[in-house]
């Protein structure tokens, strides 16, 4: 409330509130908060036109820490609340923040529909593969065998892949990053912001208390180059310490394979080139899992499409034009009327 209209560019810290941040020390959410604040500063986002909407969970505390408009709603419903905000005022930049339980379990339905309608929202899913706030039960993204208070012998149900889900429901922008990738994350978030329509970003987030190290098999320093591929549009899908590894498309079997440049006669020309407008390729990238494949990060898919709220408002505008002057007194008298003398 105490930020005056800025004479010059805002810095990342100008997007922070005076509220004490209440996540556990070492929680990945801190890094994401910093990443988002950096992104807004780089975008020169206007705080008064920025709204953060969240559900319930550790991740969903996010709006309290952003010096913008914010609405901490109820568990799972943030995509629906945010859709209402955007429909009522399409001029606002609306960000949605939530955890894997919030957005894929209780709110999976709303996440699906906000994405498929293509409401112009930035939807940030903080995936820690656990229910943090309720003290560590397994979540719909937890790996099979996750031991938790509610699954002492290990979880038995198949996890959902957030990115594949978003692709499957017709998402027009699907990207991935991670809490610890402080350079990568703002770049991805900027692309999400610039995309008109529902931008779905899965951010791998470490819950240091209840699921520490859930992502270390691809985020640990020693193996990160081998186990991550940062995809970029129109660029060959290369990874590895010296970018000596790449993905080739096995056209006969319609799947990706890992190859090493120089081995078996593989050259750079054999390496598949990322095309973020290709949903099939994006789906194959989203499916990749260590140890046989690296995890694909970056913008997996982006497609220009009309947004839901613009279509809604263009129907309204057209109806207004067709009607000339909309007069409620005429509407009250529409249809058969009669006069009693």
């Amino acid at each position, binding site marked *: *409330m105490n*930020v*005056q*209209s800025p004479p010059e560019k805002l810095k990342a810290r100008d997007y922070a*509130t005076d*509220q004490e941040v209440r996540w556990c020390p070492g929680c990945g959410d801190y890094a994401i908060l910093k990443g988002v604040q950096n992104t807004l500063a780089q975008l020169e986002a206007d*705080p*008064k*036109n920025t*709204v953060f*909407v969240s559900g*319930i969970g550790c991740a969903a505390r996010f*709006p*309290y820490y*952003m*010096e*913008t*408009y*914010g*609405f*901490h*709603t*109820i568990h799972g*419903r943030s995509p*629906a*609340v*945010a*859709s*209402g*905000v*955007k*429909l*009522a*005022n399409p*001029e*606002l930049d609306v960000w949605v923040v939530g955890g894997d339980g919030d957005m894929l379990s209780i709110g999976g*339905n*709303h996440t*699906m*529909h906000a994405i498929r309608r293509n409401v112009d929202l930035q939807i940030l899913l903080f995936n820690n593969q656990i229910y943090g706030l309720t003290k560590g039960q397994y979540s719909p993204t937890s790996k099979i065998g996750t031991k938790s208070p509610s699954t002492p012998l290990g979880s038995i149900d198949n996890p959902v892949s957030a990115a594949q889900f978003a692709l499957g429901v017709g998402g027009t922008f699907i990207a991935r990053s991670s809490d610890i990738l402080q350079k990568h994350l703002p770049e991805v978030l900027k692309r999400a912001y610039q995309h008109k329509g529902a931008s779905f970003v899965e951010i791998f987030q470490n819950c240091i208390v209840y699921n520490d190290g859930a992502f270390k098999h691809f985020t640990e320093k020693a193996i990160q180059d081998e186990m991550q591929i940062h995809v970029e549009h129109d660029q060959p899908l290369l990874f590895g310490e010296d970018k000596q590894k790449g993905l080739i498309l096995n056209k006969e079997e319609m799947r990706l394979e890992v190859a090493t440049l120089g081995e078996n006669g593989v050259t750079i020309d054999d390496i598949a080139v990322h095309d973020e407008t290709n949903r099939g390729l994006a789906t194959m990238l989203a499916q990749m899992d260590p140890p046989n494949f690296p995890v694909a990060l970056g913008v997996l898919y982006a497609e220009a499409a009309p947004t839901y709220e613009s279509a*809604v*408002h263009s*129907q*309204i505008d057209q*109806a*207004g034009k067709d*009607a000339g002057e*909309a007069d*409620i*007194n005429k*509407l*009250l*008298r529409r*249809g*058969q*009327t*009669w*006069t*009693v*003398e």
Partner: protein
Amino acid sequence: MSEVAAVERPEDDRTEIESAVVRFAGDSGDGMQLTGSQFTMTAAIAGHDLATFPDFPAEIRAPAGTTFGVSAFQINFGARKIMTSGDQLDVLVAMNPAALITNLADVKPHGIVIADSGAFTDRNLAKAGYDENPLENGSLDDYRLVKIDMTRLTVEAVKEFGLSNKEALRSKNMWALGLVYWMYGRKRQASVDWLQAKFAGKEDIANANIAAMNAGHAFGETAEMPAELGTFEVEPAKIEPGLYRTITGAESVSLGLLAGSQLAGLKISFCSYPITPASSLLHQLARMKEFGVVTFQAEDEIAAAAAAIGASYAGSLGITSSSGPGIALKMEAIGLAIATELPLVIVNSQRAGPSTGMPTKTEQSDLYQAVYGRNGDAPMPVISVSTPSDGYEVAIEAVRIATKYMTPVMVLTDGYITNASEPWLIPESGDNDPFEVQFRTDPENFQPFMRDDDTLARPWVKPGTPDLMHRIGGIERSYDSGHISYDPENHQKMTDVRAAKVLGVANDIPEQECSVGEAGGKLAVVGWGSTYGPINRAVSNMRDEGLDVSHIHLRYIWPLPRNLGELLGSFDKVLVPEMNTGQLKTLLRDQYLLPAEGFNKVNGKPFLIGELEDAILDRLEN
């Protein structure tokens, strides 16, 4: 739009009657609802007061000829004030055996039964469960039975248009309508105009329907009609002069919401999920786009409520609408609107429950849900619609309270009101005082939960306003600043102020008056919602017989009007008829510690005047 002069004067010796109740009943494919609404329109044009009750099957395409596929439309019209669609039928038009067997019980002793004998085939008789043909076996001797082979006569009347047999039979309802028009000396022009407009571009169909209607009418005029079938004259009612239309509850509520939004200076965001009988509201609003109305068919009721709350947060008028099961789903979100103190209008078109219950049958059993049905101490104003036209004023009032007090408001209507219609003296939008919303824009001393001294409402800030960025949420918040607070004293204070704010609405609504009778006496009959018509008529009738009874009808369910306790205390007895098992009764007992007594029924149908008269007599005699 057509303005039509008074009734046709009967040439022949018509029997003069004060009012009549007619029900058209047939297969759901027989077009009974259209027939009924045409008859309604014509009765209205003839200057009668009237009330209607459409009753259609739950199944979309129930098998033809079955009892559960029967669709009926009832109208009560007359030269006096009409309060209900009528207890008993003067005339039943039965288009097939199933329609006869399911509706006969409602016909008055010696009432008129007009049956399409052509549809009483062995097959149809069997489907309806008749062992023998009731038109032939004397079982209807207590009625004035008129058997006409409308099936054959219709096919003959439309022969020249070269329609298939099936298409030709679609005009059977118009043949029946023509005959009933003749009985009551009605002009047909309005229906001719309507048919031509409805089937514009399908001349053959329009002409066939018109020919069928004319043939039915001519049959009455020329045929040797059985003495059973009388012709009647009903004088125009004494009605306040002005321009009228018929209106259903769904129409009045949707128009009232639009009018309310304009009075508040807001655009509507109407978010809903289809459910019987609430969907018609969504359909109505979806056709008001030229007024800037956003309608959003959400993925479920929870999303609908959530999106409406998001829209209110963004500075538009968030409205959500459903019926009982959907309202249950919305409750957590409504709690969020209560906690964050955002305006929201929730329209509940009640139906018979619990669970799926009887979707097409009416009930008023969501009062508990509306007043009490949330987690935590979560008070919210609740107001109710009493008649099909009343929805207009009630919806405006809901918008006024929601925006002035920054609170959700629930409007209770029901399946009966939603579909029933009555004539309506059309208001001007300028008849109501505006209550334009003042959004907070001043950053000086701004705190999101700082309250207005008078209303206790917090300021409403649109995102996009400079220098007023703030956060709100469902976690308990500090009294002024709105920051998260788990402080016990603060929670007490916030709980108290939320309750006080809602109770304060009682100072901003009219004192309760009696609809009929004096304040004070032997018996008060207290109702709310769609029981208005039957209670009003029953109490009036009993007063005409010299009994000391008054009718009190509540629009405001929560908070209750500030003088209600005193008013009820001035009666010896309080009787509360409700289409539930006693929900308002419980509320009144709780609030006023008075021995209010219930009179309850839940058979999916509105109260009959007769059963209320008996209940009143019973209370006054014992």
